[in-house]
């Protein structure tokens, strides 16, 4: 008996997965590594998969569990010939890295596929009564996820288990690719991004908003998984958060300092963040940190009519200078 997950990958999914594997097989001899996903410690998790030899390709699995944005690894592999499998959202991080000259286009081979969305593990955990520590079986189709946990079977509607970013996704197909396996779903970049959740939050009073964050950040352990999972946090070992001179952040167990880091993070990502949500997914204590970046992007959209990571040739607004900005009125002295 094989992996219960791959058995159910019928029809189109199997077809494009085989096509994708063929694409990788063709390209791998010229590359140092191709990054994709494979199964992990239980049937409900996938893990990034680094393919160096042809036999590694057999383990590749694309499914709604392929949650990780693999573009995070690209800046660290500069100088190597790297292949990367991307969902639509991941491809936008690749584009943004190209826009900022943080990776070289000729070193990167991009493998796209039609993405129908990835799951939010927190939602599944909630649906299973708060416990996903004993998953025995997991089977997925486009409409449902069937999970067996502690001798109980659950049939969960896929639409309700998808990450929020997927429910309002406008870029299911890679916006840039060298190989594309399967039929494109069709991007809808002309539609406006959905910031309804941010707007609802903005309507709360200042004490309500600040109170919310003080409570959420109380449990932050400062592991910086949010930062390290971010494909565009490229300062890596030289982050302001850990600099001792200048000493921006206190080492006190202080909610304000933890919050301050998120503000630094969000400002550094304004107009660069593609809202892949890796910061929030990586957080081991489930702090909803994506909202800071969405708020900044909403401002960028309103001020510059700009969206990050769509056009490799575009210059991000905060990386350019204009004598006169259309939507910024100079202060009248």
């Amino acid at each position, binding site marked *: 008996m094989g992996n219960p997950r791959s058995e159910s990958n019928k029809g189109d999914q199997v077809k494009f997965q085989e096509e994708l594997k063929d694409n990788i097989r063709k390209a791998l001899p010229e590359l140092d590594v191709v990054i994709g996903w494979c199964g992990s*410690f239980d049937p409900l998790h996938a893990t990034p998969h680094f393919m160096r030899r042809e036999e590694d390709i057999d383990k590749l699995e694309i499914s709604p569990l392929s949650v990780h944005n693999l573009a995070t690894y690209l800046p660290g592999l500069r100088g190597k010939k790297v292949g990367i499998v991307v969902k639509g959202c991941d491809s936008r991080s690749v584009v943004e890295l190209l826009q900022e000259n943080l990776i070289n286009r000729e070193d990167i081979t991009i493998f796209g596929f039609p993405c129908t969305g990835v799951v939010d593990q927190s939602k599944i955990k909630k649906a299973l009564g708060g416990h996903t*520590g004993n998953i025995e079986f997991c089977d997925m189709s486009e409409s449902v996820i069937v999970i067996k946990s502690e001798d109980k079977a659950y049939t969960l509607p896929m639409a309700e288990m998808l990450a929020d970013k997927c429910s309002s996704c406008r870029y299911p197909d890679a916006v840039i690719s060298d190989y594309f396996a399967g039929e494109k779903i069709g991007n809808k970049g002309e539609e406006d991004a959905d910031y309804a959740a941010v707007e609802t939050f903005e309507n709360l009073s200042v004490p309500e908003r600040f109170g919310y964050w003080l409570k959420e950040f109380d449990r932050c352990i400062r592991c910086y998984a949010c930062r390290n999972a971010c494909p565009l946090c490229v300062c890596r070992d030289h982050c302001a958060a850990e600099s001792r001179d200048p000493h921006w952040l206190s080492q006190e167990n202080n909610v304000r300092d933890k919050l301050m880091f998120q503000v630094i993070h969000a400002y550094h990502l304004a107009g660069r963040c593609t809202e892949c949500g890796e910061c929030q997914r990586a957080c081991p204590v489930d702090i909803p940190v994506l909202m800071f970046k969405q708020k900044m992007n909403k401002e960028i959209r309103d001020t510059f009519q700009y969206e990050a990571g769509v056009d490799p040739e575009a210059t991000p607004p905060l990386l350019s200078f204009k004598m006169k900005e259309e939507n910024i009125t100079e202060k009248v002295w």
Partner: protein
Amino acid sequence: MDPVKYLKSADLMSWLEELARENKVFAPRYEGDAVIFAPFDPKQEISIKHAATMPPKKTVFPQSEKLVDFTYSKDPENLSRILIEAKEILPKGTTVVFGSRPCDVRGFTMFDRVYLAEKTTDVYYKARRENTSFITLACEKPETTCFCHWVDSSPSDASGSDVLATPIEDGYVLEPFSEKGQKLLTSSLLENGERWILEVKDVHENAAGFLANAPDLSQAPQKLLDVFDNMEFWENAAAKCLSCGACTYLCPSCYCFNITDETTGMKGTRFRSWDNCMSAQFTMEASGHNPRPTKAHRLKNRVGHKFSYYPAIHDGVISCCGCGRCIKSCPVGIDIREIVQEAINHEPAIGKE
């Protein structure tokens, strides 16, 4: 005196309330979607069905703790001389942790060998360790990521704990494992629990039965040294690592710290805060040289420390308690079990050293 007691589930909250009268009590509860050890609040539900997201490490080893308050002043006799007055801040009061798991508390036995050593005793750690009691819940069913049986432990291991609570129908059987533990079991809410002893044994055996055979790790210390200079091995193992601190900060047996003086004007406080070997700054030297410049070097240290360097100087004890949080909470699913096994099974290439 009855050594073993029984507590009805219905009386649990009242018992914790009783304990909270004289101690600071910590119990696991939901904060957002995570289960965290928080100061017990009778108005808030506790969550003890499964192991908490975070172990109760902070109760003895806080994320950040004040060590010393200090004040600078000028010597009135000699104005070019700066005087410093320092005041040690020792932790006070007793703490009871309820709902820890065997692995969570066994982690402290690994701290003890380092911080309670005869030559250098850490007074802050010692004070908290002595003033904190653990009422640990035996596990009924290990999770997929659990591997306490690999590292000489079990789902009902009481090492480091003061009371082991075993859930049986409608209640808990409470066994004391220390004098501190015995003192916690004097409430009138508790009745004699001797008659449940066989049930307790069943729960413990049943839980252990879920765990498959453990691999032999006796070769791990030497095998990890054998691959020490094999950077290809470590680059492969660390390829997907993000170099964040989630694994170490969630680890019940990771005990590294940083020291920072937070000064404002002439006053300041010296803090000790968690640090982690996954961070580039961890080994950054003042010269700018970093002996562990890549994530491969850092992951090698984490695995090597736990399964080789620590056992080498601590009677063969592996400094991992097998709780599996580093696997479960790793944003990219790095599995320390796989790395250790790969090191054990690694055959050196023929022709090479």
